[in-house]
């Protein structure tokens, strides 16, 4: 999985591409922790190029959302491809996480 970081005025966007499984999850978790430690209050996860997410990946998403909220900010998930949206729906994530159509809507 590749992670591309873009810094905006008030938000940090992490664009994920490829497969987010148990082997890729620790790197993403580390990246998210670094973003939150740097004081970014708005974390945007762009999933438009994400092909797969496993249970380990979903746990990283849930942890990111919880940590962001605890830090007084938010984590927003944008541009979910159909297979990822299906996994989010199955897990109830569509109702508990902040989901928006694209990066612009999350900034």
């Amino acid at each position, binding site marked *: 999985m590749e992670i591309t970081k873009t810094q905006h005025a008030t938000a940090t966007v992490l664009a994920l591409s490829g497969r987010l499984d*148990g082997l890729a999850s*620790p790197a993403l978790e580390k990246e998210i922790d670094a973003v939150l430690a740097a004081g970014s209050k708005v974390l945007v996860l762009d999933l438009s190029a994400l092909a797969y997410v*496993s*249970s380990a990946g979903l746990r990283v998403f*849930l942890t990111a*959302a*919880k940590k962001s909220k605890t830090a007084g900010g938010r984590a927003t998930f944008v541009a979910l491809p159909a297979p990822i949206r299906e996994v989010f729906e199955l*897990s109830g994530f569509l109702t*508990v996480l902040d989901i928006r159509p694209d990066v612009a809507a999350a900034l």
Partner: protein
Amino acid sequence: MTTPATPSAHPHSPLSFVEEILLLALDDTTGALRPMPVMGLDYALAGALLADLALANRIDTDPQQLVVLDRAPTGDPLLDRALGQIATAPAPQSVSHWLGVFASERSTLERAALERLVARRILAQQEKKFLWVFGVRRYPTVDNQERVEVRTRLSALILGDELPDPRDAILISLLTASHLLARIFDDARYHARSERIATLARMDLVGREVAAAIDTLARVLRTATPVMGM
């Protein structure tokens, strides 16, 4: 898992899911198992074992299959035996397959969890005679702090709107699947939060599969029950 399980290495380490589920399945006062559906505890303990392996970063799951991420031993004999079984399977199998395998080893899981909870001085082991002949073993609570803490945490999560951390989401999912949650939180405040509980319970795949296994079994048993009075 043919060899007996041994207690976990450190008595002050956090409880595993296997220990936590069994602790919550026991009545605080009597030490007896709370009423559960047929094979409810079997599947809940099997799910707890898989959840322990997942949070130890040894396995990963999706709706199709369970895969091994790392064969390195965790240091917990119970988990390492299960990991060995999964790792040496000829091909990756589904979560429901492994739930079936480990549910059939309920007595090993239950005995190991009880031994550990006694070693941690949370439970005591008590032998009693029934009709002066039959031995009955009970596990009354010695230290209820762990139960009180987890119930307080889960209660706040159910009654509030905070996001759960993955560990609590898994626990709620397993407790809901095995119908234990409704026994533990049995009053109007929680009944009014059934939608919230359902949302939290859906968040973990292993918990969803445990629920599916228990519900399927209940349906099969209902269908197979002969109609009386014919």
